[in-house]
């Protein structure tokens, strides 16, 4: 089957372009850890408040400049509603749902993950800019979805 010379040229370029994108993204995954949130850990949503570490939601310092934050997402709020971290803090967020599917996203950062009941989500970020960051639920969870937000204060 004949393919026009011009089309072969174009498709060659197109496939090469996609191969370059794949190489760049895969290298970033292996070398820089640019992997979308894919934590695999199950939990019982009906027992979240009794299951460590979610039995004590909030921020915990685990080392110099290193923190873990444990969040519970329930309609229509996040617990804790506010955390305060020092500038350049590296925070690992562990989030789980007490009811339905939620989102966990801090706009204009790389923090963006789904929160599925029955699973624990994990995402981390280094907060190098001071300010007050909005933390929102970005997956429809019911009539109060647009109210579901929290704060991360970076000093």
């Amino acid at each position, binding site marked *: 089957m004949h393919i026009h010379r011009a089309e072969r040229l174009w498709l060659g370029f197109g496939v090469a372009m996609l191969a370059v994108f794949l190489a760049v993204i895969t290298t970033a995954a292996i070398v820089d850890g*640019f992997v979308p949130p894919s934590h695999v850990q199950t939990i019982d949503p009906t027992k979240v408040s009794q299951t460590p570490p979610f039995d004590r939601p909030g921020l915990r310092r685990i080392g110099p400049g290193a923190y873990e934050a444990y969040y519970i997402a329930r309609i229509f709020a996040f617990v804790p509603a506010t955390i305060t971290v020092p500038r350049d803090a590296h925070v690992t967020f562990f989030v789980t749902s007490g009811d339905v599917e939620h989102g966990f996203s801090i706009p*204009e950062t790389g923090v963006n993950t789904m929160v599925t009941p029955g699973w624990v989500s994990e995402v981390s*970020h280094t907060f190098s800019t001071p300010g007050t960051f909005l933390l929102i639920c970005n997956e429809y969870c019911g009539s109060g979805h647009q109210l579901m937000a929290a704060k991360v204060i970076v000093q």
Partner: protein
Amino acid sequence: MKIQKDEPLPATLAFVFTIGILIVLGWFAMFALLRSRW
């Protein structure tokens, strides 16, 4: 078997390659954004 003679298609090439270049530029701009926000 007829030998296919490829007639020139310069405008088509200009069209698809323009789209291709825009995609490349846009994709790398998004990658730069990803690096800055990660």
